[in-house]
Every structure is written in C-alpha cells, then in structure tokens.
C-alpha cells in the first residue's frame, strides 16, 4: 500500500468543481512535484492532507491511517508544512522558535538555540536574525527561516508550498538541492523551473 494516498476525491470550491474522482499514490520517501496549472487546486490538495480542506467525497490515507476528525492530529504530527513566508508566526525569531518547540508534540526534539545558529549560517542569514522581529525581515529571509523550522521539526512528510518565491536564483538552487537531499516524503507545490531535472516525479492534472 502506498504511503500517501488520495482515493477518488471530489472537491468543490466557490461553486466550482476542483476534483472529481481524483486519485494519487505516493510512496514513502518519494519526492513529488505538483505542477498542475494555476487554479487546478494544487494548494487545496496539500491542504486536504492537513485537514484544512475537507473533500466532499473520497478518502485520504496517510501511512495506513484514514484521515478523519479523529486522526487529523496524528496525521498533522507527521507533516512539516512550509508555505509562503507571510504565514510564519509573529514575534522575535528566537522566541518564535522556542515557543514552537515548546508545543507538547515537539518537545521530544530537544531543540537548542545553538542548532538554529548553525542553520542561520547554512542559510546565509546574519547571526543577529535571532534577535529580530519576524515582521522586520525580508520575504526571502522569512522564507528561509520557515524552511529551517520545517527541517528542525524532523517530521516524515514535507509539504513545500511555493517556497521559492522571494529567493534569488542562486539561493533557490541551494535550497532546493539541500531539501531534496533529505530522506523524506516530499510534496512540492511549484511552477518554478528550478525543480526540473531534480528527479522529482511530476504530477499534473
């Protein structure tokens, strides 16, 4: 059985049919690029996996678990969701990170700020970023922090929703190569050509 599975999904949004009888199977540690044209529901698809959007009919299975109101929390716990930079929690960077790793589901990760400092270097972010307010950072800086947050959460499934907007070409390439080097099940939502020739399975509909 596939690790992630969308089975016969029906979804309407704003009185428009987005999915009717949609199927998709993704294996464990497979890396998938969702590259359907705009308006075809790429983000809706990943949001269904997180239970933020609930389909009218059909089943979603994650690691053998059927997604319902009862299992949604266990499933979310397996997923690191990185979306556009603006969605990262507000506040001072070091405090935001500390508070996220203070959530009961994340406490086992024994997060240390030194780890974050190392990551700032890797991501070419200045060290004083830690003391800055999230709102004072540029979109690209926020985006990189969101990626670090996603990586540090060490979850099995990564959803990367349009994460390259706001990054320059060189940084983009670096990020993408870094992210795809992990042995995770990765779903990428993007139109960016940077993902081409990275041995991702391209899915369109």
């Amino acid at each position, binding site marked *: 059985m596939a690790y992630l599975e969308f089975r016969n999904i029906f979804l309407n949004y704003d009185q428009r049919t987005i999915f009717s009888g949609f199927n998709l199977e993704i294996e464990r540690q497979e890396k998938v690029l969702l590259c359907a044209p705009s308006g075809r529901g790429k983000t809706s698809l990943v*949001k269904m996996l*997180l*239970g*933020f959007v*609930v389909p009218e009919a059909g089943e979603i299975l994650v690691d053998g678990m059927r997604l*319902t*109101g*009862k299992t*949604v*929390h*266990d499933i*979310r*716990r397996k*997923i*690191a*969701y990185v*979306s556009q930079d*603006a*969605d*990262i*929690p*507000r506040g001072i960077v070091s405090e935001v990170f500390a508070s*996220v790793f203070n*959530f*009961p*589901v*994340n406490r086992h990760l024994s997060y240390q700020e030194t780890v974050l400092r190392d990551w700032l270097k890797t991501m070419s972010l200045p060290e004083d970023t830690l003391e800055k307010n999230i709102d004072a950072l540029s979109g690209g800086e926020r985006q990189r922090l969101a990626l670090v*947050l996603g990586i540090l*959460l060490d979850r099995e499934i990564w959803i990367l929703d349009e994460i390259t907007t706001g990054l320059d070409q060189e940084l983009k390439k670096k990020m993408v190569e870094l992210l795809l080097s992990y042995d995770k099940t990765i779903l990428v939502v993007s139109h960016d050509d940077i993902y081409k020739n990275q041995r991702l399975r391209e899915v369109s509909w």
Partner: protein
Amino acid sequence: MGVQEIPFYTPFYLLIFVLPMAIINFKLGIGLNKRTIYALFRMTIQLVLVGFFLQYIFLFNNLWVNSAYVLFMIGAAGLSTVKTCGLTVKKQLLPIVIGFGLPNLGMILFINQFVIGLDNIFDAQYYIPLMGMLLGNSLSGNIIGINTFYNGLRQNERLYQYRLALAANQWEATLPWYKEAVIACMNPIIASTETIGLVSLPGMMTGQILGGSMPMTAIVYQIVIMGAILISRYFGIHFSILLTRKQAFDDYDRLIR
C-alpha cells in the same frame, strides 16, 4: 437628606436643545436625526417600563422573583452578545449565557455576602442594581473579546493553519488570538479604572451622592464595584471563549462559528 423629586414633565425641557441639534444635522446633511430621536424615544419608554417593573419587584423583594429578573438580564445580555458578534443563536446562546452569567452571579453574591455583609444577599436593593452594573460592563467587554478572537482567526486563517500544522493542537494554534482577545476585553476597563475620579465622577457614586449618601460611603461602594467589574469581566471573557469554542470549530479545527 433625600433626593429632590423631578416632576414627570420637566425632563421634556431637554427637548429644547434637541431642536437645534436636529436643525444643524439637517442643514449639514449629518444623517443622525432619525437615530437620535429613535434612541431618545426608546430609552424613555424602556426606562419607564423598567421603572414600573422594578417598583413591583422591590415591593415583593422575593428571592425567586429577584433571581428571575437577574436571569432575564443575563439572558438579554447574552442574546445581545451573540447577535452583535454574529454567532449562531441556537448553538452559542447557552455557552455565552453561562460563560458570562456565572462569573457575574458568583461575584455579586460574594460581594453581598462578604464585602457588604448583607443579611439577605438576594435583597433587590443591592442584588439587582449591582448586577446590572456588572452585566453591563461584562457585556461590552465580552463583545470586544469575542469579536477579537473569532475575527482574528478568520482574518488570519493562513497564519492559524500554519500554527496548526506546527502544533497539531487547536489550543496552542489559537493562543495568540486568545491572548489578544483577553487584552482587548480588559484594556478599556483597566484604562477607566486607572483614571476614575480624575476624568469623571463615576455613575454609581453620583447616584448615591444624589440619593443622600455621604461621599465616603459612595466611594467605598465605587471601589468595590470597580474591582468587581474588573474581575468578573476577566473571568467572563475566559469562560465565554472557552465555552463557545467547543461549538465553534469542527473536528478538523476549522472555524465554523
């Protein structure tokens, strides 16, 4: 010293000043005339009816009649909150009524028993007007707080979802808006508690002094009521959000109200 009785017709003298207001509004095209006149008219009718009603309630001064009236006040305030905040009446009226009825009821009985030390804590003379003051304040605080919480979540849906994905727990995901709601609810009352007496003489004190109490007696009552308002407003907003949120989200933590 008793209060000077006002004859029934002299309040209408105030209408002399409403006339120029109406003319100015009309000339400048300020669309307030209808609402002003309606509000004054409605206020008069409402208060006269309440006055008649209270006269009888005070005459009986019975525990059950008094409590029924207090419950009616709580219900009306609850309905007003639910409507103003755009919540579903059927689902959310009871949680709201309990959510801010309980802290206020508890507070009033506590004051009557331990602070004022009444023989009959359900005595209409204390029970009803003090409860009215507490409820009136909780009502405005509740509306501000509940609106802040639910509108904040609605307007920041993406931030909220991101937090849900990070935390996988609705309580933690909503915490920033919960805190904001409590702060928004408490800010006005904290500000007015700070400045009371400097900017304006509080209504209850004014009433008591007009009614013949010595200023120091009136002041002690005012201190008690200010403290009580602040406390019951605080617990009221916590209870109201905690009780309404049970119904406000679906199994997937999506806000439905």
